[in-house]
């Protein structure tokens, strides 16, 4: 009899103990790291690229119609476009982790939080913050090692490029045009500003504390860039040369106008930024040739 009671008591104790153990474990793990999200949706093309670079594409159950790199990203289920992902399509895929960006996807992020779905907001403002983000994404996807390897590769490449910048005393001034009607460029709050710096050059609008903004011909003529980079398809090199008043700009005089760069290298803060820095650096050194396909 007494053994039976003791047995019962013991069983009960085990049950309660294991219950609390589980609860405790679970709450700890959700605070820290180890629950691997099995179903990931990326609403940001650059994060999609990071996920692929970390070799974790098998976790990806959804992305946007703009996620077109690498080729395999196109085949992933599309939950909508970048600014208007469909809430229903997101929910349908039962994600455990969603990558989003602010401020463009504020509504979606709030809704996801309301439904207690883990959200990671990506918004790198510099190369350093991109590196920090890659590490964090690595943690979230259980790919710490891959993230570290990726970072080492990128950093090595960066320092290689930096070493190749042979004693440029006056780093050339670069003008980046991101839209043509009206002409728009980037300021020092833009991530692109940082890429220009890493390439051994200086953004001609680096004193402007803005992300991107509309400017005009005269302002640009006064600032007189040495290199002009056009990152939108609406003008050709000859058209840029023919713009009235622009013949006074050093870049036009020396025919240093470049329209063939891949805008994704600059607008997507992902691993491919390194190609952007590389291309820019080659342009700065005057050895740039258009690559066929990377």
């Amino acid at each position: 009899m007494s053994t039976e009671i003791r047995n019962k008591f013991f069983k009960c104790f085990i049950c309660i103990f294991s219950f609390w153990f589980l609860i405790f474990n679970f709450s700890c793990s959700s605070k820290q790291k180890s629950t691997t999200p099995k179903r990931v949706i990326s609403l940001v093309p650059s994060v999609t690229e990071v996920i692929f670079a970390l070799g974790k594409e098998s976790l990806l159950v959804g992305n946007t119609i703009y996620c077109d790199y690498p080729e395999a990203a196109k085949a992933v289920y599309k939950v909508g476009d970048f600014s208007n992902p469909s809430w229903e399509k997101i929910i349908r895929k039962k994600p455990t982790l969603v990558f989003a960006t602010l401020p463009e996807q504020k509504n979606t992020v709030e809704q996801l939080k309301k439904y207690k779905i883990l959200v990671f907001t990506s918004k790198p403002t510099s190369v350093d913050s991109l590196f920090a983000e890659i590490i964090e994404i690595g943690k979230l996807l259980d790919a710490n090692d891959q993230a570290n390897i990726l970072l080492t590769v990128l950093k090595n490449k960066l320092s290689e490029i930096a070493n190749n910048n042979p004693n440029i005393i006056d780093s050339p001034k670069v003008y980046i045009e991101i839209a043509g009607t009206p002409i728009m460029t980037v300021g020092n709050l833009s991530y692109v500003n940082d890429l220009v710096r890493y390439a051994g050059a200086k953004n001609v609008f680096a004193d402007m504390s803005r992300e991107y903004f509309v400017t005009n011909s005269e302002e640009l003529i006064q600032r007189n860039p040495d290199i002009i980079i056009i990152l939108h398809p609406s003008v050709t090199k000859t058209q840029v040369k023919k713009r009235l008043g622009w013949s006074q700009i050093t870049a036009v005089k020396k025919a240093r106008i470049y329209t063939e760069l891949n805008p994704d290298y600059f607008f997507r803060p992902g691993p491919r930024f390194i190609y952007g820095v590389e291309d820019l650096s080659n342009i700065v050194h005057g050895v740039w040739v258009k690559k066929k396909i990377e």
Partner: protein
Amino acid sequence: MQKSKSWFILIILLVIAIILSFGIGPTGFSLSDLTIPLEVRLPRIILGIFAGGVLALVGASLQGLLQNPLVDPYTLGIASGASFGAVIGYMFGRIGVFTVPVFSFLGALVTMFIVYNLALVRSRITKVSLVLAGVIMSFLFSGIVMLLMVLTRKPLTEIIYLLMGRLNVVFTNELLISFIIIFILSAPVMMYLFSKWRSLNILSMNEEVAESLGIDTQKLTRNIFIASSFLIGLVVSFTGAISFIGLCVPHIIRLIYGPDHYKVLPLSFLLGASLLIFTDLVARSIAPIELPLSVITALFGVPFFIYLLKKRL
């Protein structure tokens, strides 16, 4: 005496606007090197005269024709229709420099036709129905423009500038020449509008009187509509849709100089041109960041307009 004085003041105003706009800019001004004022600022000034003048002139003609103080290229939806056409033109790519203006004109014309027919209730047009139809179409076309630009992945800023106006056009020689050709081509159309001052005067008394005096109102309406669409289409294809000028400039002129269209039409043109040049000067003096023109026309124009209105009442 009074007549010549009013002309004189407005021409002086325009000249001051042109001189200031020609002389002021980030690179400064020196007589020894006029390259930048001539190549960069002058095209902008010409565009400003054209756009501001045309918007005000069309506004004045339409207000006179429809005897409705609320109509202008904006409230009638023509400006948005023209923006819609311009976007379609952009999507076809710049096949030639005239692609965008032509599409813009077609957009304006189609919108005007739709608005007119929507407003036609039992073969009569009421003031309210016309503005209502115009505003509805304006919303529709602004919406479609947004949609198209989002679908073609244009940055939002570009859309804002298209819908709110700018003189910040980067001219090339070809573009400047084509613009001047357009300016010259549109001169006869503007002259046509100016020449209709007598009919508009009679029409503003009474439509039946006008008919009995041998004015074919149907034909007049159609012609002024086509002329307006043509001019607005051209303006919008270069500058985007600029608000306030077309609505308020004719009112300001009428409040100061009276309702005679012989004065209202050309004086509106002059005041519209000078105001737009001043507006643009402000818009680009906050450089290196440019503001859309409609922002400034609204901020400065509306208080002034309210002042004039209160003073007269």
